[in-house]
């Protein structure tokens, strides 16, 4: 059963007991979320069947196409801010032409996947949690279970596949828009021509930077789906619970993405 029965504990007597209980609950929740992820991954081959293809395409549309607007604005301004801040400092040493490589490397390695992950966690992840949470509260998930339709295969797997496919694509898009944003600032405010900016960018950026960024994007996609769907399935106490699940999804996704992003960077750039 994906929906856990409500647990009841006697009131805690002291701080240590209370902390221990929270730590145990967190570990138990992490374990359950991992089991849910494994089940969803095991179900991915079923995604090839016509029964689930439509759901996957729908989720790709929702998570990908519908996020393009906000991603464009965020990526453009991220690139512009990066170019302006680094450009102002580099101009002191007459090295402003290097903003091309600075912006491109930062976007490819860190900001591209992380900004995309943040936007997707806040917009798509929270909607996953709210939708599944509402389904739990209104017994729709119980109805699926009674009909022997596996909720993880029906609800989690299409979202997981959609984000595994869409996150790298959206990250490439964010990278391109961010680099273009930097070029606009270079041209208009720092006196760096577009050809000089892009020459510098391509001179220092390596394939590895792109691949590591895309790897991060895939990992972030998996993390966002896992956190959001698990929070949705853990929803209790009606509308208040749905709100709590949504908030937790965004907060936990950000924290986990930061920690895992650091670990991946350390792994590839030590």
């Amino acid at each position, binding site marked *: 059963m994906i929906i856990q029965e409500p647990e*009841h504990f006697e009131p805690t007597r002291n701080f240590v007991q209370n902390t221990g209980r929270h730590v145990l609950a967190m570990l138990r929740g992490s374990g359950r979320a991992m089991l849910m992820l494994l089940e969803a991954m095991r179900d991915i081959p079923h995604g090839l069947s016509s029964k689930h293809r439509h759901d996957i395409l729908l989720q790709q549309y929702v998570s990908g196409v519908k996020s393009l607007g906000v991603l464009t604005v965020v990526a453009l301004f991220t690139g512009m801010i990066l170019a302006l801040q680094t450009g102002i400092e580099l101009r002191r040493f007459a090295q402003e032409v290097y903003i091309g490589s600075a912006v491109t490397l930062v976007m490819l390695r860190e900001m591209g996947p992380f900004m995309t992950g943040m936007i997707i966690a806040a917009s798509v992840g929270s909607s996953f949690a709210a939708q599944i949470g509402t389904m739990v509260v209104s017994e729709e998930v119980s109805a699926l279970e009674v*009909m022997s339709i596996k909720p993880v295969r029906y609800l989690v797997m299409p979202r997981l596949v959609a984000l595994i496919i869409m996150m790298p694509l959206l990250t490439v898009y964010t990278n391109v828009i961010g680099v273009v944003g930097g070029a606009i600032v270079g041209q208009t405010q720092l006196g760096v021509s577009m050809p000089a900016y892009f020459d510098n960018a391509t001179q220092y950026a390596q394939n590895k930077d792109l691949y590591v960024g895309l790897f991060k994007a895939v990992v972030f996609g998996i993390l966002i789906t896992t956190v959001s769907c698990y929070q949705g399935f853990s929803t209790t106490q009606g509308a208040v619970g749905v709100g709590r699940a949504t908030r937790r999804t965004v907060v936990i996704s950000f924290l986990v993405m930061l920690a895992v992003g650091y670990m991946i960077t350390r792994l590839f750039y030590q």
Partner: protein
Amino acid sequence: MIRFEKVTKWLGGSLVLDEVDMEIRQHETFCIVGASGAGKSVSLKHMVRLLTPDSGRIFVGDDCVNEARGKDLDRVRNRFGVLFQGAALLQWLNVGDNVGLPLRMKTDKPDEDIDRLVKEKLEMVDLVETFSKTPYELSGGMRKRVGLARAIIEDPEIILYDEPTSGLDPVTSRTIDRLISRLKTDLGVTSVVVTHDLHSALAIGTRIAMLHDGKIVETATPKEFIKSDNEIVKGFLEAQYITTEAEWKRDPSP
């Protein structure tokens, strides 16, 4: 058909079912009545293992539900159709897709066959014209009837009704009652109805069981039930303005 053996369940620190023994016979309409929080819906959820007992066992035929896992559990669940309290329709699917969902997900039947079966079941609940509508466009009573059409799409042996008349006006409630009686006659199913609406239970029930504080305090036919000497039953009857002197009208033919 369904047997509870000393089933005990604690939820949120409260004893909801206290060593409940209960037997539901084949082809009967068994109504479980009681006040809110008496454990009616909890007992229903145990039958399809949406909840598991802390102690005791539940049998559906020869299968012990609380020990069933994987395919065995699917096999037991496939014997049931469930109408949930709020109908539990998936909001992004239209009526036709909601009703046909189990067939689309679990069988390789072609779409035309599924659509034909869906229309057949919608016809049984008098809602064939809603095929393309979304759940948002339906009234509460219509949603419950669509939920019922989905519950019977796989021709179950047992239909579970969780508060089928809650939130409905008296006229719509009686329509649902007649529908439950008609499906029992037409499909030959065993029905288990959880309700706090005694009018409904007396009208459609073959037997009525009253749950109070986690225990079954009375199991009787409707005629015996309204004459019960049990003080809790008496209080429950009086609270719904039903007295032994009242001329009780049994459900009219479907």
